[in-house]
């Protein structure tokens, strides 16, 4: 009976015991596990698609301290999947909105907000107080930054990533297995990153993958079950198929291998080739502003307007009088265009159409212009009734 007095029951209040009773009556969690959750400190990178279910479930489960890094503001396009934010939150910082939702779900959770961009300068300082880092970012520079910082500090990195209707998840923990760089030593060059023509995501998918992250985080805290270390979970939502691949620690890994060459955080934008590329993309082609094109229309100046978006985007909205030739079809359909005509090419924001203009110029077209800022700028500057997406 002496052990009863040693049991740390006093650390959960009566209200907390009731709140967590469905955990407490499971031997896999129990009082010990629930206290581990209460003492745990988890850092969520991003309060977006993955971060929403992740933070919600960790808070509901009773993780005592939740750090959240996000400097973004809620917009309407977020609401389809970022379930921690409400319609009323549009225009407010995601951090504020997430903090309120978490407070409503479980006031016992201490939320520590970092309303800042995660950088090589601040990452180690922010990470150092946490037990586990959960990466819900949507871009390669931050992904490599989170990985390297976790390796350098010896912390587990609970990872998930999504694309359209496909997800990946793993736990990268260099002390016990591979890191993200063991899996992918380098990011794709920006030119090969899918453009938003191929982008988009099914709203439920981050719900599933973020929940997998929450699950793995909780298992790591409890020290129970078999974590996703050394395994890559692939989820195909369209075919509802989970697959699992083996991951190996790469002995030559530049950050967690035997002779690491990366011993401190580096410049991740440069590493991912982000800088420079954006400038090159739009600098070389002749442009026309939305206002100038409107003037041409009003003056009934003859020109051909080509829309290089995808058919499903054309269905959302289109500029009257435009002809749809998706970027991928431009090479084989350019014979439909006459190089003697004045031609304006547009897309959603001007990047794909810049590529199309480049292709057409290579083929000898000279009287050709890229609509600067695409449909988005047209909506902002000429026709506010045009929906934006």
């Amino acid at each position: 009976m002496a052990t009863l007095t040693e049991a740390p029951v006093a650390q959960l209040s009566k209200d907390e015991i009731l709140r967590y009773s469905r955990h407490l009556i499971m031997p896999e969690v129990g009082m010990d596990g629930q206290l581990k959750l209460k003492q745990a400190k988890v850092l969520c990178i991003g309060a977006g698609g993955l971060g929403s279910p992740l933070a919600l479930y960790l808070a509901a489960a009773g993780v005592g301290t939740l750090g959240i890094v996000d400097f973004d503001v809620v917009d309407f396009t977020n609401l389809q999947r970022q379930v921690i934010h409400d319609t009323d939150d549009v225009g407010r910082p995601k951090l504020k909105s997430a903090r309120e939702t978490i407070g409503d779900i479980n006031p016992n959770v201490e939320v520590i907000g970092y309303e800042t961009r995660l950088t090589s300068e601040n990452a180690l300082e922010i990470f150092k107080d946490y037990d586990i880092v959960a990466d819900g970012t949507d871009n390669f520079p931050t992904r490599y930054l989170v990985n390297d910082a976790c390796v350098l500090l010896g912390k587990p990195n609970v990872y998930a990533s999504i694309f359209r209707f496909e997800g990946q998840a793993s736990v990268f923990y260099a002390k016990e297995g591979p890191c993200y760089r063991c899996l992918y030593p380098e990011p794709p060059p920006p030119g090969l990153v899918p453009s938003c023509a191929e982008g988009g995501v099914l709203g439920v998918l981050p719900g599933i993958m973020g929940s997998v992250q929450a699950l793995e985080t909780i298992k790591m805290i409890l020290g129970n079950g078999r974590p996703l270390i050394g395994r890559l979970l692939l989820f195909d939502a369209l075919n509802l198929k989970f697959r699992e691949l083996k991951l190996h620690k790469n002995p030559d890994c530049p950050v967690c291998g035997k002779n690491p060459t990366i011993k401190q955080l580096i410049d991740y934008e440069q590493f991912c080739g982000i800088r420079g590329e954006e400038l090159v993309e739009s600098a070389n082609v002749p442009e026309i502003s939305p206002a100038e094109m409107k003037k041409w229309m009003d003056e009934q100046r003859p020109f051909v307007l080509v829309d290089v978006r995808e058919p499903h985007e054309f269905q959302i909205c289109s500029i009257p009088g435009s002809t749809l030739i998706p970027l991928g079809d431009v090479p084989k359909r350019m014979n439909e265009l006459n190089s003697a005509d004045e031609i304006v090419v547009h897309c959603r924001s001007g990047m794909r159409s810049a590529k199309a203009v480049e292709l057409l110029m290579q083929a000898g077209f000279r009287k050709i212009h890229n609509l600067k800022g695409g449909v988005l700028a047209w909506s902002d500057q000429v026709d506010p009734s045009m929906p934006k997406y």
Partner: protein
Amino acid sequence: MPVKVIIPTPLRQYAGKQDAIEIQATTVAEALAGLTTQYSDLRKHLFTEDGKLRNFVNVYLNDEDIRYLKKDQTPLHDNDVISIVPSIAGGSHLRCICS
């Protein structure tokens, strides 16, 4: 021998929009060569200009990374499944090089 190659979502547009392709091959190299001959647009997404598999694309034979088998010379057996697994980073288009 017949093997199945699973095409990941981002690359399906270069592979006739298919999620899997049956191919006859005796090694992984043969399978990928057959695939990129059939779908030439896939080539630059899988290989560098000097023909090396790109660093952000991993190839698995069943559940094993070919880097830890015999790389592209890994022999195939009937009904093996090859998976092409590129790195993905998605959710919002905050950062994508997009239009």
